[in-house]
């Protein structure tokens, strides 16, 4: 079953690609749609079935497709493992993935590259499922890299515009920097456990063989991978730019699924990370810092998708706080809920964008709530969810994280998390109000009609955003924290009285409400774009100049180094050495040939000199006394 789940999207992707390349101009809307969505429907059904089985208490599923490589002790199989963690992941990935596919069918309908899009999209699904279901870290890494590839392809989907490709390159490169760390971590892990097998189970069983230092190093390096993939400081800069891709892509890849791979990875290696709490704290700090940082930037952005992108980064920060503080299940819980409301937000944003004829600046929209009623309502729900207003999904998951932070005694992280929660509410509602409430900026506009397949998924997701939180209601709210029990991850146990939890929740909710009110005050009627008039604003609007910093710090030196090598090292040093040696020989030859002056008496003189030298040699050799 797992084999089918993983391979089917790959196969359909390949099939669509072949058909597409066969004739790129042909419109085969139905064919591509049925292939692309059909395969997803099948695997969604399959994954939900397995989820059901698992909930009935079925054991972890292991399947082996074939042996990938066997060289010495390096024995890797293309094998899949569905334990409780991964089954949760694939369930919502396939579910939301299917919805977004359906949505995309509407969104991309008129695009010339429709077939290509579905090929890429299915490729992404396959890669993501491979990542999640992999039985060993190497296969996970393969999936890890392939999702990076499909993300690259999809970001650069509109390749006519060089800026999009640039964004795609940036995404892939920064992901690769992360992968660079990841592969090093994996290699060290493998070398440390050489001969003990390399499936997750085997690693878990033998984790005690590795000493603390090495383990710390491995943990750190693996997290570098997560930083790249999940857009955490300092490797986050690609995510806002990644919004260059079609909106369904942003919804699926850069919000709901791929970016959470880092969180999933940490959770998958939870057995490793519980051994090294220091690294855990580091992860949490990075998460907290990223969350705040992204929230600040988001508050000053005006591109609807970029705001969502920064909010994604911010939410990912929360997740890392959770997994860093060894509360893996609450991290995964947030991944789960976030997937619903963030996908919803993006799809809503996409709908708005389509309706507005590809206008993405929120300050050029305004007062859409009447015309896009359904979109408005669903997005409102999602915004409530992300802001952590009970009883929407986000409340429970975010609360669980903040409670953990508080309980574990890392108050600084907790403070940042709480502040960010308020800020989240502010900037999300800022966006919502600017788009749907504020006065319209232009008098006349004709909205592009939205097809049904773009709106129905919104409803489904809105339902999800509303109720998804209930799977993780913890004791304080009378639930049993079903998801945490189901996942069976090595969570830290939190000891906090119910009253403290209520207090924390109250604080969060009031902060969120405060942010919401503030947003309404500022943007509810007259939305105005932030102007870089003060230094403070300027810095924030320019995203703290991090992009420029990276440019000067890495790209420019590399380019000048490259030119330096081309013009100086290669030409002057290596070639120069050769050329000068040759020149030296030629100059010597030139001097020598000047002896060849054509005068016969000169020739006789050389003869004479030769004979004289010989005679002197003989005198010396024979020891003749003169």
């Amino acid at each position, binding site marked *: 079953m797992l084999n089918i789940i993983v391979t089917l999207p790959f196969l359909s992707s390949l099939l669509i690609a072949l058909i597409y390349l066969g004739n790129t101009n042909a419109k085969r809307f139905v064919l591509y749609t049925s292939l692309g969505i059909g395969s997803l429907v099948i695997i969604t059904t399959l994954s939900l079935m397995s989820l059901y089985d698992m909930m009935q208490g079925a054991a972890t599923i292991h399947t082996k497709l074939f042996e990938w490589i066997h060289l010495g002790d390096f024995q890797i199989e293309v094998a899949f493992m569905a334990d409780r963690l991964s089954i949760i992941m694939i369930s919502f990935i396939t579910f939301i993935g299917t919805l977004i596919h359906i949505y995309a069918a509407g969104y991309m309908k008129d695009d010339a590259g429709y077939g290509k899009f579905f090929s890429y999209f299915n490729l992404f699904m396959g890669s993501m499922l491979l990542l999640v279901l992999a039985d060993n870290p190497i296969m996970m890494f393969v999936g890890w890299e392939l999702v990076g590839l499909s993300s690259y392809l999809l970001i650069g989907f509109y390749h006519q515009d060089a800026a999009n490709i640039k964004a795609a390159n940036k995404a892939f490169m920064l992901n690769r920097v992360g992968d660079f760390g990841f592969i090093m971590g994996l290699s060290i892990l493998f070398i440390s456990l050489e001969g003990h097998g390399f499936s997750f189970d085997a690693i878990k069983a033998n984790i005690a063989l590795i000493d603390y230092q090495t383990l710390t190093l491995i943990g750190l390096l693996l997290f570098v991978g997560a930083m790249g993939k999940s857009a955490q400081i300092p490797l986050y800069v690609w995510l806002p730019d990644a919004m260059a891709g079609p909106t369904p892509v942003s919804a699926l890849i850069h919000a709901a699924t791929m970016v959470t791979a880092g969180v999933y990875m940490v959770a998958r290696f939870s057995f490793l990370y519980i051994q090294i709490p220091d690294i855990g704290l580091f992860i949490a700090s990075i998460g907290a810092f990223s969350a705040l940082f992204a929230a600040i930037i988001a508050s000053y952005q005006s591109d609807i998708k970029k705001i969502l992108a920064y909010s994604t980064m911010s939410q990912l920060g929360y997740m890392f706080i959770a997994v860093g503080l060894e509360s893996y299940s609450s991290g995964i819980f947030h991944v789960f809920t976030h997937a619903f409301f963030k996908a919803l937000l993006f799809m809503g944003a996409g709908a708005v964008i389509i309706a507005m004829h590809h206008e993405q600046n929120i300050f050029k929209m305004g007062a859409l709530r009447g015309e896009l009623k359904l979109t408005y309502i669903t997005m409102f729900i999602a915004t409530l969810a992300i802001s952590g207003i009970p009883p929407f999904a986000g409340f429970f998951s975010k609360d669980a994280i903040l409670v953990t932070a508080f309980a574990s005694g890392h108050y600084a992280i907790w403070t940042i998390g709480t502040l960010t929660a308020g800020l989240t509410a502010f900037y999300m509602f800022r966006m919502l109000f600017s788009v749907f409430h504020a006065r319209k900026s232009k008098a006349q506009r004709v909205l592009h009609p939205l097809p049904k397949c773009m709106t129905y998924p919104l409803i489904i997701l809105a339902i999800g955003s509303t109720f998804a939180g209930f799977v993780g209601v913890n004791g304080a709210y009378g639930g049993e924290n079903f998801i945490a029990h189901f996942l069976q991850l090595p969570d830290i146990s939190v000891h906090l009285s119910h009253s403290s939890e209520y207090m924390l929740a109250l604080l969060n909710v009031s902060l969120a409400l405060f942010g919401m009110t503030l947003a309404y005050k500022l943007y509810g009627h007259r939305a105005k774009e932030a102007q870089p008039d003060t230094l403070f604003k300027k810095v924030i609007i320019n995203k703290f100049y991090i992009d420029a910093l990276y440019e000067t710090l890495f790209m420019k030196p590399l380019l000048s180094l490259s030119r330096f090598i081309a013009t100086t090292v290669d030409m002057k040093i290596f070639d120069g050495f050769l050329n000068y040696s040759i020149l030296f020989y030629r100059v010597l030859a030139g001097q*020598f*040939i000047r002896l*060849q002056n054509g005068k016969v008496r000169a020739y*006789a003189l*050389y003869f004479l000199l030769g004979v004289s*030298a*010989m005679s002197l*040699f003989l005198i010396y*050799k*024979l020891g003749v006394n003169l």
Partner: protein
Amino acid sequence: MILTLLPALPFLSILLGAFVLMLLSHKKSISLESFNVTALFFLTLALFFELITFGLHSGDYLYPSIFKNFFIFDEFAAIFDVMFLIGTIFTLLVNSDYLKSRNYFSGEYFALLLFSLFGMLMLSHAHELLTAFIALEIASLSVYALVGYHKSKKVSSEAMMKYMVLGSLAGVFFILGTALIYALVGSTTLESIALYLHNAEEKDITLLVVGGSFLMVTILFKIGAVPFHSWVVDVYHGAPYPITMYMASTFKIAIFAIALRLYLVDFATINSFWLEMLQIVTILTLIGGSFLAISQTLVKRMLAGSSIVHSGYLLIGLSSIGLGSDIAAPAIMFYLIAYFLSAVGSFGILSFIASQSRRQMSYDDFKGFANRRPYMALMMTIFMLSLAGFPSTIGFLGKFYIFSAAIESGQILLAGLGIFTAFVSVYYYFKLIAMMYFYESQTDKQKSFPLNVSTLSIALIALLVIWGGIGTSLLSFIPGADGFIDLAKQAINSL
């Protein structure tokens, strides 16, 4: 009586041929081709006699009652004879086109060539220093005359003048050396010298060493070793193509015939006196030759310069003999063959081109040659590769044996230098290939391959060059590289 004359028949037929040609050369009515055929007839006759008497008379002397032991007949001499004869035959065949294209050739040319050949034959058999000198002079004087054969051309006369002045100067040293040796030994036969040296434990052999060194000066001069090299480039350039070819290939072999005889056998015990000197000369020759060769723009002069480098390789072999390498002497012989084939081939192509036009062939003139004459260019490439010592040609095996000998005798640095100059030589040989293939010619008309004696013999030589490089013991009925080395070893052993 007649039977004892049998081994001398090759000599005699050449001498007879020379005289016949000389006498006939007055008749203007006889065409050049008839002369050519006549010369070839005598050469073939000599070769035939040589082959049927091959190995019959090892160690015999020619009419000891008359000549005492001035002339020896052994396999060593015989094999050199065969080389001279074949060399001359090839020289005549390859240049038949060139002869036709130049009006200054006449019957004397063939007569002189055969006289010079007669000198060489004598040289390989000479077992006495004065005989060797006279043989050398016969060969040289004829070659002097041949160099200046094109008497209306200034450079030809100039080349002859230079060669004569310097050649006579070198010749003087030979007889000076002979006189000095005679002063000590009281005889000039090689036997008695060897005998003297054999019993020379307590005697003062200074004079012998000095005399031997002077002999060596002449030999070094004739093969063009630095610092006695200065004539080579000029004379090779000034001489008509057939003569250049003849000097570079056959004449050089002749010099080594006497050099090997002297240093392998008679002076073997005192070789160590010369060793350092020889090594220094070798180093100078290798480097100086490559200096000369890379600076030239005329292909003929480049080949002249490179022939100095090849002499350097041969000298490596000679000094290896001094250090007691077993394979050095066959290596030298093999190298001579290899160089002979490649040089005859490359000069042959030059002379073929010269027979079509009257330009001096510079590198630039070869531009687009491959377009005009693809097969010629291919053969030229083969010869260049062989000269450069590229594997799968006979030139590679030649270098292989020489360097092996050098390493065997412990002259690692010399072998290294040899390999280095071989590397340098790749530059000037490949430059010619590059010129032929990589540039478009002005006239792009492809000419068909002219089927005549010259070109066919060049093609035959090209095949031999390849066969010599890859000829295997698989086909035992055709002697490959192996067969020749065996022969050379046998010849060396016969000394």
